[in-house]
């Protein structure tokens, strides 16, 4: 056992008559497959943080004129940037698939007289919306719209 839980986790408001050992966490909990998946999910937050900084930099360059913008675009051809964007894509897909899997059961059984559709239909709608939005953005970025 490793003492990695919060020392007051699940402690009563007033201590009991007997002295207790502080709450513990199972040795190697982070190595269990389920926890590894969850930690990976949490770790994607770092990728989004870096993406946020990148967005700020790109926005700043956009407001600083043509030269700054071209320099940012040239930087994006660097293999490190390409690798980071691939990592971001994997992180986004991983989080989206996890979210889609858990989304249906988070729906209340009903809102007034309305009941949510069955889980497979919700899954289908989520994936259809994802594909449609992706196609829309690809079309815009390729100059198919607003060219």
């Amino acid at each position, binding site marked *: *056992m490793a*003492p*990695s*839980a*919060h020392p*007051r*986790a*699940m*402690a*009563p*408001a007033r201590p*009991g008559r*007997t*002295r*207790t*050992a*502080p*709450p*513990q*966490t*199972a*040795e*190697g*909990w982070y190595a*269990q497959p*389920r*926890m590894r998946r*969850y930690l990976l999910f*949490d770790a994607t937050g770092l990728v989004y943080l870096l993406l946020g900084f990148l967005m700020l930099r790109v926005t700043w360059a956009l407001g600083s004129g043509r030269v700054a913008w071209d320099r940012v675009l040239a930087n994006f051809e660097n293999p490190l940037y390409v690798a980071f964007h691939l990592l971001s894509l994997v992180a986004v897909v991983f989080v989206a698939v996890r979210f889609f899997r*858990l989304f249906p*059961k*988070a*729906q*209340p*059984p*009903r*809102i007034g007289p309305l009941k949510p559709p069955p889980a497979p239909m919700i899954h289908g709608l989520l994936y259809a919306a994802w594909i449609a939005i992706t196609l829309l953005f690809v079309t815009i970025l390729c100059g198919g719209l607003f060219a």
Partner: protein
Amino acid sequence: MSDVERKTFVVTRFDPDRDEVPKTQSYEVPCQPDWKILDALNFIKDHIDASLSHRWSCRMAVCGSCGMNVNGEPKLTCKVPISDYSDTIEVAPLSNFPVIRDLVVELEGFLEKLEAVKPFILRAKELSLDEGTTRQTPEELEEFKQFSMCINCMLCYAACPVVANEPEFLGPAAIALGHRYSLDTRDEGAAVRSEIFRGEGTVFSCSYANECSEVCPKNVDPAAAVNQAKFNSVIDWATRLVLPRGGEK
């Protein structure tokens, strides 16, 4: 007796009168092939070391007393067969709970959290006997029935990463049981519980790790309850904000 297999049990021990911190002790146990983990612990208690303390009662996954960490995973020890494990099996008290002694954890903190969600039917006015019984259709029962199957075994608390880090978090079982009553058509306390669920350390502390549902031995889905309660709390808050008198009829 030829099928007897010797296994090593590495059991966490803690004596509050002597030990500063928990330690482990190993026992060689001759296990029958059909034994569960609890059978081996009872064998240790009866034949090897009478000082071992552990909780158990029904031996059929109904009472929820014998939850422990087996090889680091929260399990009902009366439900998991010894044959699922290799020659060395580690048994420890449930994670995230103060330890009273050996494998026995302090449950008072959970009972306080459970009380906070009002896990009972709330009504503005009780029906008199003359008014007859309160009817509920099978469809209405189905909406909350799974949440009624919780046996308070605390495995979900041991698995939850938020419980490990936020002492004030109400936790999966308490929220699931509160939500169960909010879904019950006989209950009129959903708004009261929604207000409780909007407070500090409640449903919005949940990061939807889904670990609680993964480890539940009764196939209850506490993660669904917690996240449905989030949804209902937001709807309730928005209704009160937008509609006159909070949408009261």
